[in-house]
């Protein structure tokens, strides 16, 4: 296949830790194969070659936290035929969305001696709050297998097989004994979006929700379970307010918990 008829891929970074785009470089078995099928046209972390676009597929990492980024994402959308967000920052604002609950001026003062040098927005918002998004891949970080699935599904014209059900599905398929039922360990698995392969329970710890809410949550029934297993209000608010804090379901449940 010549360069010209291969679809063009771009990888973009907004406020983030780089981990999700690193996942692409972590596809050691697939990376060179991907590069043969797709022209990686813009990927600053990996290459200094740049291409003005347009691009067939854009992977967007990170959340919008500055006025410049709010403009830049418009450009990214304009030059992208299909835009896929990768990771909790791009999909739900990321851990930096904790600023949404606080006074950003005060946050800046804590971190920087001269806050006036820093240009930042009061909120960290997901990409979908700014432009239309074609697909959102969850996770903090995203799962390598799911990233490859998104890319191969794109190439085959298939809907990516990325189930939105709970982590419990994967936990049982993996054959892990339920940490909540068998050990009384608090676990967000029943309300968390699958995709990680139910890692934490396999390591004996409760899920901490890094893939955000599943597509079918029931917090009024679920929260009492966390309490039964020893979490107090502050613990519950904390666990909901981490890497997907701005996901509406988590945000809503944590606010209700605080209101009690």
């Amino acid at each position, binding site marked *: 296949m010549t360069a010209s008829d291969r679809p063009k891929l771009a990888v973009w970074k907004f406020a983030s830790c780089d981990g999700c785009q690193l996942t692409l470089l972590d596809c050691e078995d697939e990376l060179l194969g991907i590069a043969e099928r797709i022209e990686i046209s813009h990927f600053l972390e990996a290459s200094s070659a740049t291409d003005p676009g347009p691009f067939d597929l854009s992977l967007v990492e990170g959340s919008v936290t500055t006025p410049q980024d709010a403009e830049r994402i418009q450009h990214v959308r304009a030059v992208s035929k299909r835009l896929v967000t990768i990771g909790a920052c791009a999909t739900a604002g990321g851990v930096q969305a904790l600023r949404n609950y606080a006074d950003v001026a005060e946050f800046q003062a804590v971190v920087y001696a001269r806050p006036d040098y820093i240009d930042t927005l009061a909120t960290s918002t997901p990409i979908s709050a700014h432009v239309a998004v074609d697909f959102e891949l969850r996770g903090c970080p995203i799962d390598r297998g799911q990233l490859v699935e998104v890319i191969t*599904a794109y190439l085959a014209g298939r809907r990516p097989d990325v189930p939105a*059900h*709970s982590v419990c599905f994967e936990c049982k398929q993996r054959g*892990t*004994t339920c940490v*909540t039922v*068998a050990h*009384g360990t608090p676990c967000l698995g029943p309300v968390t979006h699958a995709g990680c392969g139910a890692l934490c329970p396999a390591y004996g710890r409760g899920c901490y929700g890094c893939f955000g809410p599943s597509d*079918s949550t029931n917090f009024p*029934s679920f929260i009492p379970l966390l309490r039964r297993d020893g979490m107090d209000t502050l613990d519950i608010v904390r666990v909901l307010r981490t890497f997907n804090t701005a996901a509406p379901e988590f945000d809503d449940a944590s606010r209700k918990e605080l209101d009690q």
Partner: protein
Amino acid sequence: MADGAAVIDKGGLDTLIAVLVARGRTVVGPTVRDGAIVLAEISGGDDLPYGWGVELAAGSYRLRAREDGAAFAHSAGPQSWKTFLHPPRERQWSADRDADGELVVTEDRTPAPSYAFLGVRPCDLRAIAIQDRVLTGGLYTDPAYRGRRERAFLVAVECTEPGATCFCVSMGTGPAVGPGYDLALTEVLDADGHRFLVRAGSEQGEAVLAELPRRAADTATRTAAQERVAEAADRMGRSMPLVDLQVLMRESLTAERWDDVAARCLTCGNCTMVCPTCFCTTAEDVTDLTGDHAERWRRWESCFDRDFSHLPTGPVRDSSHSRYRQWATHKLGTWYDQFGSSGCVGCGRCIVWCPVGIDITEEAHALNREREGADRKGTP
């Protein structure tokens, strides 16, 4: 004895495992791991959970040490045998585009392992029979399942220790063993020692039994075994309402109780995953990066997944109300229409492993009460 029943001791159990391994079988049995009694490959009698029992409740499972050193005095664990016979994920076929662009489809023919399942409880033996009916009893047979099933050797163990969440008696599936086993054991622990009454249920079972150090079954052991099983029947923690459940479910489709369950249900799917008869799967199409190789896989799926019933416009069963109803009415009701029996064997796993402890027996009782209430209201 006329029925060929025999008695073996703990050493005989070790020999049984050794004989099965020697016959090239992968022996799977209960063993302790991660604070639970799980099913895993075992290589000898030492792997069995001697001296371990369990405390079961809705939404709770705890291991507990037993003083009597019994090997099989624990109730259903977190998995069932479907993990092995109908595994969570498997490839069915692959398709390749050859040089001319022509499709070549190749069926996956991974040789089936030759399993020996040690410690199949009567409820689970029935569950296997139910899955047999679903996957091999209709117009189409699932070849991979059939391959594994035909090669599997089943050592059943009668239930002498039901849990607080068990209700096999009211489903007619235990605690005494039903048909379908190769060997059936009943564990007896009393002043005469720790021993197992063994019966063969097939020619293969007889052949294996013949290789074990054994003695003919004595009356005391037979009686003790019968008594233990009979006592177990009296110690069921739960029961279903004594009504025709198929009819109850059919007449409860618009019951208000479903709203009550929906308020509690997390739609996490755990009940379906641990259920020994739930068989639903989803088709997964994968391609590699060349674009010339595609595969069809299937993986466990659940009616609690919103996407399970999706049509191009959205899911048919969008509410958790309708998804729980689908599961319960299928399990207890429409299973009869589809496969000629109940889909429930009374093992209680769905009760134990539901994080919020939703209890299918309690729901059935509530539906029954609601129906009776409606009946009364309807009478002048």
